Structure formats: C-alpha cells, structure tokens
C-alpha cells in the first residue's frame, strides 16, 4: 500500500480541524488535493485486474477441458468448436469410466495412496521426532542426506527397482508401488514431521514425565495428540504426491496400474474423448485437495521443504 499517499491526503485538508465560526478563514482554504486518492484507486484497480488475468490463466484451461469432458461425443468432433458445446452428455465421461481398467486403477490409486501415507508415517515420523528432540552426532549428516534425497529424482530409479521387484516377486503389485512412493515421500515426511514436533512444546512432554509417564507414554499420550493436526496435513501432502506420481507407477506395474499410469498407458491408442475425460477426472481431486489444504500450503511447501 502506498502509505505516503494517505499521509498527504491528511495533510492536504487542514481545514477539517478548524472549528466553525472562524468565518472568513474557511474561504481561503486551499482546494482539497484528491490526486493521491485517485492514484490509490487506480492502483487498486490495476492490482485487481492483474489478479484477474492470472486467475483466468489458471482457470480457463480447466474450464475448457471440463467443457470438453461434458460435451457429447458428436460435439467433440465439431470444428471449429463453439465455447459452449452444442450438445451436453455424460457419454464422454461414462466412456472413460467404463473403459477397461479405469475402475480397478482408481481403486489401486486409492490403496497405494493410503498405504503410502501409513507406511511413510510409521517409518518417517519417529525419525522426525528424533531430529526435533535430540542432539546427537551424525544429525547434520542425516539431514543433509534427506535434503539431498528430497532434491534428487528418486523416481528415475524405478527402472532398477523394477528389476529388483521382478527378482523378489513383488513386481506389478500395489505393494511395490507403495514401496516406491514411500521412498519418494520419505525425505519430506521426515523433514515436515521434524518441524511439527519442534512446534510441540518440550515442557508438556517434561510435565508428563514428571507425572510418571514413561518416555514412550509421554510421546504417545501428550506429544502425538498435539502433533496430530500437523501430521494429518502432511499426510494429505503425501497422498497427493502418491496420487500424482506417474513414471514410477507406469514402470513397475503392468496389470495393477494406478489411475495416472493407466491413463498414460492408454494414451497411445485412446480417442481424444478418452484423453479429455481422463484429464478432467484427474483434475477434480486437485480442486478438493487444495481447498482442504490451502491454509497449510505456504507453511509446508513454502517453508519447511526448502
């Protein structure tokens, strides 16, 4: 905000404080300077216009694919397409849903996501707790390793992983995708849960110990409930990561694909209608995720994970 503008507005009308009855004084007042006010209003309008432009850039493509997905198959073939499709029907979306593999793939995606959340919390949260509460030799090395692992494209390792899974007989299972996604989520889970445990005051844990809890009990009955909201938020992030992961899931599965992997594998021979309906179906969960997560976004993606 341009506060200097506001200050000069106040300075520009000294007559406001002059008591009535001083008569001829008021006639000699300088005219009110409205330029700063106008400048401020113009600025507000310009900012709002810029915001609307960015919002349109973000929204219009999603609206377009949404329109394509609810068009009737005949309307999709039209060219040039009108903005509002000439015929609405659920046929395009239904064809996607009824296509071979879509429903099982949806189930696999959900399962992999949930298993990944559980497994990464089971393995990662204790490590985050140790990082938050203890000072020990090797802590720096461990953190640097996790930061490095976070930055590296672990997912390109799905090729040798696929060979390993083939040899150990877990190739093409929900379990194998869960293992891969947990590996991807592990560095972020450890770092986020560490920052969550740091924000739980050490005093309450100390108090629980004073009143006779063992260290494990103090963690379970005092620290864990206090950390729960943060852990729940980080779980949703893990789930979104797993939900959106494509390359690894496509490489280490054949029959038990997750939804994005299924769509990717079908791209080659699929008609346009399948692609548009599939793209729209993949976007819908994102709208809900972000709606639920919007107050955590800046903290988690912006601060903790840098």
């Amino acid at each position, binding site marked *: 905000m341009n506060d200097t503008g506001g200050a000069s507005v106040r300075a520009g009308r000294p007559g406001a404080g002059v008591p009535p009855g001083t008569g001829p004084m008021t006639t000699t007042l300088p005219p009110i300077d409205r330029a700063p006010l106008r400048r401020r209003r113009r600025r507000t309008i310009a900012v709002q216009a810029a915001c609307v432009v960015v919002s349109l850039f*973000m929204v219009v493509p999603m609206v377009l694919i949404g329109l394509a997905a609810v068009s009737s198959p005949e309307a999709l073939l039209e060219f040039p*397409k009108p903005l509002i499709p000439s015929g609405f029907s659920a046929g395009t979306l239904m064809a996607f849903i009824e296509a071979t593999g879509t429903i099982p793939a949806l189930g696999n995606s959900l399962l992999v996501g949930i298993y990944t959340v559980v497994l990464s919390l089971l393995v990662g949260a204790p*490590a985050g707790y140790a990082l938050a509460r203890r000072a020990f030799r090797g802590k720096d090395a*461990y953190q640097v390793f996790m930061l490095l692992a976070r930055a590296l*494209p672990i997912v390109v390792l799905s090729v040798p992983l696929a*060979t390993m899974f083939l040899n150990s007989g877990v190739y093409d299972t929900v379990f194998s995708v869960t293992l891969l996604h947990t590996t991807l989520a592990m560095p972020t889970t450890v770092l986020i849960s560490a*920052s969550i445990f740091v924000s739980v005051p050490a005093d309450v844990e100390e108090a629980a110990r004073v009143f006779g809890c063992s260290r494990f009990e103090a963690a379970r009955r005092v620290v864990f409930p206090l950390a729960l909201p943060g852990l729940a938020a980080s779980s949703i992030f893990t789930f979104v990561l797993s939900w959106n992961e494509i390359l690894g899931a496509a490489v280490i599965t054949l029959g038990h694909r997750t939804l994005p992997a299924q769509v990717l594998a079908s791209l080659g021979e699929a008609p346009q209608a399948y692609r548009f309906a599939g793209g729209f179906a993949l976007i819908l969960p994102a709208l809900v995720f972000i*709606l639920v997560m919007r107050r955590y976004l800046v903290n988690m993606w912006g601060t903790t994970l840098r």
Partner: protein
Amino acid sequence: MAVTAAPAPPVATRRRPAGSHWLLLAPSIVFMLALFGWPVIQALISAFTDDSGFTFAAWDRLFGDPYFLRALRNTLLLIVIVVPIQLVLAVAMALLVQARPKFLSGHFYLWTIPLAVSELAAGLVWLSVFDSRGYLNSLLVSWGWSGTGVPWLNYTSTGTMLLAVVIAEIWRATSLVFVIVVAGIQMAPKDFDEAAQVFGANAWQRLWHVTLPQLKPSLQVALILRTILALQAFAVAQALTGRDFPLLVGETYQWYVNLQNPAVASAAALVVLALSLATALFYLRTMRQRDTEAA
C-alpha cells in the same frame, strides 16, 4: 531451513539409554538404503555390464539414438526458458498478494490449484487447447485469423511443440515457486520496506533494493528446486506430443516400457540423476554458505 534451526531441547536428558535416537532413525535409514541406495548401485551395474562383463554397449546405444540428443536438447531448452519466466511470474504474483487485493483468498486458491494437478493431467488440459481441432484453433478459425488452424502439435514443427510444452509447464509449476516466494516474503521483516518508504523510495526502488534482496534465499531455493523438477518433466510432453517432443525422463520410459531395454533405460536414468546431483550439490553448497553467513 526450519529444521536445522531447531534448538536442542533440554527435555529427557536424564536416564536416556545412549543412542536410542538411532532406534528412531534406523527404519528410515534402512528404508532409504534399500530403496534408494541399492537401486543406484543396481542402475550403475546394469548400465555398465552385460553377460560378458564390463561394457559401454548401453551407453553407445543411448548416445547413438537420435532421440536421446534431441531429448537432451529439449530438456535443457525447456529449463532455460521455463524457469526464469516462472521466477519472474511468481515474484509478480507474490507482490500482487502483498497488495492485499479484494477476493484474495479466491485468487490464492485458483493460483495454487496446479500444485495438486499431476503432470499428465496438465498435459491433457493443454491438449484440449492446442490440439489441431482444439479450442485455440477453434478460436482462430471462428475469428477468421486462420483458415484451418495452426498444427501446434505437428511433429514437424518443433517450435510450436516447444511453445505448447512451455506454456503447460508454466501453468503447472509456477504455483510451487509462488508458494516458496510468498513464504519468503512473509518471513522477511517489514521494517526495511517501511523505512525505505519513509525516506521516499518509490515502489520500483523498494522492490529492487529492499524486497528482492530479502527474497534472495527463497529465490535461490526455488530456482534450484524448479531446475531439478524440470529435469524430470516428461508426462506433459508425453500427453501433448507423444514421443514427437522427447524429454530425458521420457526416454527412460520409452526404453524401459516400449523398447524393453532396462540397461539403456538405466543409463538414461543415470544421466538425469547425474545432472540433478550436480544441481543439488550446488544447491546444498549455497544453503551452507547462507547458514554460515547468517551465523
């Protein structure tokens, strides 16, 4: 880095069995070694050996493949074009947020939706726009700007394919940079900006001499993270163009899934890994420098 800033709390220093924290850390270490460390070794082995022993055969095939060099060129081009645009756009968006416009929460919601949109979905979204019978061409034709529309995604016109992929990537991944920059602005103290205002600096001077220097750490992180993530881009191009606009990770996918050659796929994966490692080490070094400067 909030994590390293954590003070060592005084809790539970008594009666602690030595080294119990390793019990807490061990599962994650074992996990990462088994599913991250071991695959790296496996990838090295499979890229450098065959039945008869040590060989460069996989690398010869990879570098001999015309797709690979195109993929390398495309990937680097994509990074060089997309990342700077995203940084500028994200800073502009963060400044807009700072100006507290009306409907801020609505705008913020819309701007962050792409964070949760998968690469593949982003590619398909823009396919509906850039397809030869898509919405962009419909618009051009119905406004009479073009007779039959522009073949944006035709395999002969690398330029328009690049344009489509660039726009889709900007749409998809600017929100990540935006969120990092917003966090950086929120953490920076406001005093300097107010002081500059009092001394009569105009908006441009305040941005250039106060806000941007304060944002430098966030911008560095965003720059490097985005570079590494852009190295991994593949599904956007896959959805828009198939293999007509090859990218490095897409080549890994092609060699493994369609050409059934794990050795060459591993070699391609190692190239991506090496490029990312170089960027990541650079990133950790700048972070370290910043920590020592701060201390």
